């Protein structure tokens, strides 16, 4: 079977030559999408990072394919967003069928004026390759392949690691260890931590096939299609004429037998007929909806699948992992620089556990709908499907996966609103994107014009505010709407409810943490300190 593989060489590090362990501020275990995103984000903030991976290659199978708008906005800030969108397949429509009949369609981004699309589909290895290329441009990132974590000793103010390499073991000291080493996390094992949650018994066949077909660029989901009787099926388009097919097999399927190429081909032929196809990658999986009780354990912080797992329906796995990475990176950088209090790391726990619980909740509800646990639950589900063509309330209950949107943090870092704001911007949520024009007349978008730090967006035009700018607190960059950026079409004003004179404090992860109808230097300074956990 064809596999797209990129190989990377093991290289001996100077850290392996010394007798006593070399000390680093931050070590990340796991160079998947989540670990790489964390490394690049930290490095862009001036933190030197050692990134360890036990393998020396990427790209065995497509794995994650759906990258959400928020993830693409993060990746854009990390310098790879545009090239990924150009490489990927952009989509925003989903269709849900029952049998052969269309039940309904949904549009995941019905409004204009966002730089990034609702979703792209792109094989995970292309995303990893782009992140590795980006990481290799940054001197602060030391990416070490074939470096396998074998031992972990927790200390008061850090950790001591033992790492196995082709040249034998060596040791490292780190102030902070970020565990981005996936669902079978070694770090989790070394700390003896377990998960709370549910394992589902249903087995699913996941297959990528290469095929010339002109099926629409949509997410298509079937309940009980004729080509796969009694079960559900999902199909997605990827670049390179590759298609993802996901077939429910039920709890009693034999995972070994179901991966035999002849058997897989026979199943897929029914789905894809009359198209000819080649198998690219096949796997049989079950899934879990579960998480660690806490993501922060002293100086060890878990991100991505190492911290929490969900079903793939909803694209909430890798996307939430990259959002974990972004949430942690600026906080850890602020703590290492002495600007942020250690409470900031606690806020990572608070905020990303909220997100994980939201993702697990959606994922569990989707699974309950797709895989009824008993005949009585199946009857209820089938009744909803039977009523769906006739009654809107039933269509709204049909659940083929609720697709990933960012969580809105109920956060100690947010300063509560003094006055109500309309629009789509929410405290504790990423700022909504909007079209803007730069002073030289070129068009752009709001989010791409924000930098890596705290940002105060101020809307020009309020009474006698012009000189107050001299008092914007240190550590905050200001962007004046009406000077630095222009809102020519009024979409920004609408989404932010931006009246003249209004001011918005935006965190380094582009989340809104405070806003006022009028700029007040003292209030901005207080909100800034609060958002830094001080």
């Amino acid at each position: 079977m064809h596999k797209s593989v990129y190989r990377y060489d093991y290289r001996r590090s100077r850290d392996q030559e010394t007798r006593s362990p070399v000390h680093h501020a931050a070590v990340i275990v796991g160079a998947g999408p989540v670990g790489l995103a964390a490394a690049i984000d930290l490095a862009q903030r001036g933190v030197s990072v050692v990134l360890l991976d036990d393998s020396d290659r990427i790209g065995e199978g497509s794995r994650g394919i759906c990258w959400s708008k928020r993830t693409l906005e993060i990746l854009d800030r990390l310098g790879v967003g545009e090239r990924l969108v150009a490489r990927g397949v952009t989509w925003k429509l989903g269709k849900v069928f029952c049998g052969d009949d269309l039940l309904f369609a949904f549009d995941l981004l019905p409004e204009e004026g966002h730089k990034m699309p609702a979703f792209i589909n792109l094989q995970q290895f292309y995303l990893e390759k782009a992140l590795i290329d980006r990481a290799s441009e940054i001197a602060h990132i030391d990416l070490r392949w074939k470096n396998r974590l074998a031992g972990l000793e927790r200390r008061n103010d850090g950790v001591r690691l033992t790492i196995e390499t082709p040249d034998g073991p060596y040791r490292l000291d780190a102030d902070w260890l970020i565990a981005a080493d996936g669902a079978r996390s070694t770090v989790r094992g070394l700390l003896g931590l377990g998960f709370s949650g549910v394992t589902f018994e249903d087995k699913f066949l996941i297959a990528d096939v290469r095929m010339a077909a002109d099926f629409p660029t949509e997410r298509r989901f079937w309940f009980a299609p004729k080509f796969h009787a009694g079960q559900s099926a999902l199909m997605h388009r990827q670049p390179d004429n590759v298609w993802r097919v996901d077939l429910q097999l039920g709890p009693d399927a034999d995972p070994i037998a179901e991966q035999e190429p002849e058997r897989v081909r026979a199943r897929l032929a029914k789905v894809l007929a009359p198209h000819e196809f080649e198998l690219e990658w096949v796997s049989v999986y079950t899934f879990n909806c579960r998480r660690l009780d806490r993501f922060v354990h002293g100086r060890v912080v878990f991100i991505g699948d190492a911290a929490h797992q969900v079903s793939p329906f909803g694209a909430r796995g890798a996307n939430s992992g990259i959002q974990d990475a972004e949430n942690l990176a600026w906080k850890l950088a602020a703590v290492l620089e002495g600007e942020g209090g250690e409470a900031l790391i606690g806020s990572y726990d608070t905020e990303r556990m909220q997100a994980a619980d939201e993702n697990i909740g959606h994922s569990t509800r989707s699974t309950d709908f797709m895989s009824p646990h008993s005949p009585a639950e199946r009857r209820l589900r089938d009744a909803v499907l039977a009523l769906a063509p006739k009654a809107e309330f039933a269509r709204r209950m049909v659940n083929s996966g609720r697709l990933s949107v960012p969580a809105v943090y109920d956060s100690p870092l947010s300063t509560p609103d003094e006055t109500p704001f309309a629009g789509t911007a929410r405290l504790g949520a990423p700022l909504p994107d909007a079209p803007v024009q730069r002073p030289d007349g070129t068009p752009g978008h709001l989010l791409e014009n924000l930098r890596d730090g705290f940002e105060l967006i101020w809307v020009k035009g309020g009474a006698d505010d012009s000189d107050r700018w001299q008092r914007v607190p240190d550590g905050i960059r200001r962007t004046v709407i009406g000077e630095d950026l222009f809102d020519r079409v009024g979409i920004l004003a609408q989404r932010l409810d931006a009246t003249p004179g209004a001011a918005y404090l935006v965190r380094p992860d582009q989340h809104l943490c405070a806003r006022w109808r009028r700029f007040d230097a003292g209030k901005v300074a207080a909100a800034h300190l609060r958002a830094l956990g001080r």
Partner: protein
Amino acid sequence: MAKLVTASRFANPDAAYVALVEARRNLSDADAAALDTKLVLILANHIGDLDVLSEAIALASEPAGSPR
């Protein structure tokens, strides 16, 4: 036929569905059927309108796939 509301009325339809799922989780078929029958009676009385009830019965009695 116009009094029965079939537009979605729950702010969170997924949560309403899960409430119904969880009510029958771990019940035998017979117990789940008895639960549903009691639910029908309770909700019918709550609606308290024979016209609405008749429309609901008609909708539920239509064979799957029949046009509407």
